[in-house]
């Protein structure tokens, strides 16, 4: 893999006009990655999902060079109907379109940040890989007091042109004071056997509101890793919803730093898996100052030999008195081959806090099925009704009514 990495790296920087310093930073990151390799189960955070092994058995040899000199045609058929929205379109890892047609142009700034590489505090070898190979990095700045009128949908599209490739993406967002952004990540993958490595960095200033919905619905044979870093100032709110269904393997990581008082973070997730899919959500909520709040709800429905993992951590610093942290994960195992693993973790250094977590996993309740069947439903109908209700609980947590409906339609959940 080492030679391949070197070769692909040389190829990819050739096409970029980078300063010597930037090349050196990228090189340093590459060396770090070569040194550490893909994370494996020996690392605590990857205990339940051995990425190194998963890539080896699903993809085999990866290539890291992406020829991005030519443009791809934007396929408008993937766009969401019936909801007016702003767009960013990625095709095979290349930004093809940035369109804020519904917004005031002077309130949003798009900054090309290709040269600067910001380090994440909570980094792993994948962030090094990302740093080494991302060639365009934009920062989207929402200016003070501006609230986007329409949601922004980021289309992540890959097509059959690419195969056994590693795609690295990076986006930075800054939400200035009193601003707000609704962001939907929509994955439309028709490609196979690629490894997508996505890093987002969000900076939320005072009173800013971020709502991020990640929808991975379309069946595909890719391996996905997505990392969200969210830094939150006073009074800011972040809401993250993850629908994890389509990819062969997917791991979503949310690292949230509640730096300002009264900041709050919500992480909700739905796993609905079949075949031999293996998905994971890992969240780390760092309560770093007093009077901060976090709430997490993760529900999984697992069929066939699928596997879901939830690792959630609430960290409470010794200054973070009056913290309120809550975390609940529930799983229904439908098949004897399916598996659910959880590691809900609390690390607490302050005494005046209210933190709790709960985790439950098991089969569908036979009593409930019996109840429904005695009222005339078939076994299949009862089962569907129960699963529908089980998942609806999480979808109902979405605070934006427009998007709630969109997601309900996407999953096919009835009220």
């Amino acid at each position, binding site marked *: 893999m080492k030679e391949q990495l070197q070769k692909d790296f040389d190829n990819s920087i050739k096409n970029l006009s980078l300063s010597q310093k930037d090349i050196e930073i990228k090189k340093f990151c590459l060396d770090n990655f070569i040194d550490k390799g893909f994370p494996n189960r020996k690392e*605590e955070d990857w205990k339940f999902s051995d990425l190194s092994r998963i890539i080896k058995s699903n993809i085999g040899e990866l290539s890291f060079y992406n020829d991005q000199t030519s443009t791809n045609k934007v396929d408008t058929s993937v766009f969401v109907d019936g909801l007016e929205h702003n767009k960013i379109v990625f095709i095979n890892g290349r930004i093809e379109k940035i369109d804020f047609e519904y917004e005031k142009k002077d309130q949003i700034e798009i900054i090309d940040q290709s040269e600067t590489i910001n380090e994440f505090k909570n980094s792993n070898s994948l962030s090094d890989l990302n740093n080494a190979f991302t060639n365009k990095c934009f920062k989207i700045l929402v200016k003070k007091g501006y609230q986007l009128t329409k949601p922004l949908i980021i289309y992540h599209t890959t097509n059959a042109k690419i195969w056994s490739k590693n795609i690295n993406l990076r986006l930075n967002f800054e939400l200035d004071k009193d601003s707000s952004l609704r962001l939907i990540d929509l994955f439309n993958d028709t490609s196979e056997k690629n490894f997508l490595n996505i890093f987002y960095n969000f900076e939320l200033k005072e009173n800013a509101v971020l709502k991020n919905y990640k929808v991975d619905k379309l069946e595909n044979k890719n391996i996905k890793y997505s990392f969200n870093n969210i830094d939150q100032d006073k009074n800011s709110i972040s809401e993250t919803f993850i629908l994890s269904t389509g990819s062969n393997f997917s791991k979503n990581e949310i690292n949230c730093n509640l730096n300002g008082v009264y900041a709050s973070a919500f992480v909700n997730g739905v796993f609905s898996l079949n075949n031999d899919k293996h998905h994971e959500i890992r969240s780390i909520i760092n309560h770093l100052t007093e009077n901060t709040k976090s709430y997490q709800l993760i529900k999984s429905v697992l069929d066939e030999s699928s596997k879901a993992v939830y690792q959630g951590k609430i960290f409470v610093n*010794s200054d973070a*008195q009056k913290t309120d942290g809550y975390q609940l994960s529930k*799983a229904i*195992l*439908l*098949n*004897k*081959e*399916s*598996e*659910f*693993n*959880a*590691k*809900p*973790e*609390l*690390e*607490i*250094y*302050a*005494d*005046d*806090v*209210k*933190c*709790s*977590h*709960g*985790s*439950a*996993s*098991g*089969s569908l309740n036979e009593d409930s099925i019996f109840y429904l069947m005695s009222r005339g439903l078939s076994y299949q109908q009862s089962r569907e009704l129960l699963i529908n209700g089980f998942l609806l609980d999480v979808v109902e947590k979405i605070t934006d009514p427009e998007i709630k409906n969109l997601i309900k339609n996407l999953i096919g959940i009835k009220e």
Partner: protein
Amino acid sequence: MDNRQKEINNLKDYKYGFSTDIENIQAPKGLNEDVIKFISNIKKEPAWMLEFRLKAFERFKVLKEPDWQKPKFPKIDYQDLYYYSAPKSMKDKPKSLDELDPKLLETYKKLGIPLQEQARLNGIAVDAVFDSVSVATTFKDELTKQGIIFCPISEAIQNHPELVKKYLGSVIPTSDHFFATLNSAVFTDGSFVYIPEGVRCPMELSTYFRINASNTGQFERTLIIADKGSYVSYLEGCTAPMRDENQLHAANVELIALDDAEIKYSTVQNWYPGDKDGKGGIYNFVTKRGLCKGKNSKISWTQVETGSAITWKYPSCILKGDNSVGEFYSIAITNNHQKADTGTKMIHLGKNTKSKIISKGISAGSSDMTYRGLVDISSKAKNSNNYTQCDSLLMGNKCGAHTVPYIKNKNSESNIAHEATTSKISEEQLHYCQQRGLNPEEAVGLIVNGFCKEVLQQLPMEFAVEAQKLVGISLEGSVG
């Protein structure tokens, strides 16, 4: 109130902190094959036992000290320890208590464990372990009548080799983790219990561990076998003198329950926790594992952990037999600079297996407490159930309380439920108690005892009283 206050004042300092001035026989300092041979030789062990030890030592040489635990500690120099220390008077084993060194008798009297059988009213048979050897076992005759074997493990190796050979290392193999393997190589003494088929042990069996000599590690090994349909309740208590250096205690405890048998294992651990500044204290790195080998068997662990500078242990149950039950009840209290990383593992292998975990952690002062646990339901363990509850109480803003549960469910017909909370004693509760005339410390004691009640209830009567007091004492000075 005055009486209680007086009592608390008496107990305020670690009252077991004295040391007994007694002549010792020690193995040469350090860890090598010669020392292992020395231990084996002095215990007049058969060849297979020495082989067991040497095999473990071979394995130990390639193992690395684990470092994933939360409490970090300075590196232990395993060559700077004595692996065997015994009172000289024990060289030729005294035949009865009358021949026992009066100094030893005195020590145990001071600890509140009178070894003279006539002095005991509550009917608990005691095996007293002093440093590396077992000094006395009481009520032996009475137990023998029922066919129960309760003796030091060194005696069992001589007298019941078939049982020891069959079961020793069957739950904690010589190839296990670092400390367990170290123990397999150098263990010195401990208790052996065998309850024959269908016998319900008429009294509580108990071991009392005492570390006396300085610079020694205590490595005892306990093996309890409950044959078909039998029942035994076993208690374990421990203390050590106050010393500036950290002493290592790495014991192995193996429990085996055959068909329909039940073992109840209770521990009140009160090793010297170190002084207020965190100097000295015992490193309590113990491996405890129970195997529910037979159908309908049950193993229940109850622990009250108040002592030790660092407690690092996970009493576990392997639920292999169908319908077997594993339970774990724990109170862990850390104060001053104490650190604890404790919890349990419940490994469900058989069908219809059930497990229950109740863990209560209290941290005060500058201490740090971690609950770490594993619930693993394998794909064959149909219709299994687990319930876990771990609650933490924090007192003061310099301490930490952490919960790290690992939950693995590979069976769709099984259910796992896990709950954890972290909170502090509410002002309302304190106010209410104080309004009714309790001083703040008493109020905290009362509330904490209420918090721990679910676990305290599981302890045998005599222990429960002691444990309740211990809970109060351990939190001394943590209020206000």
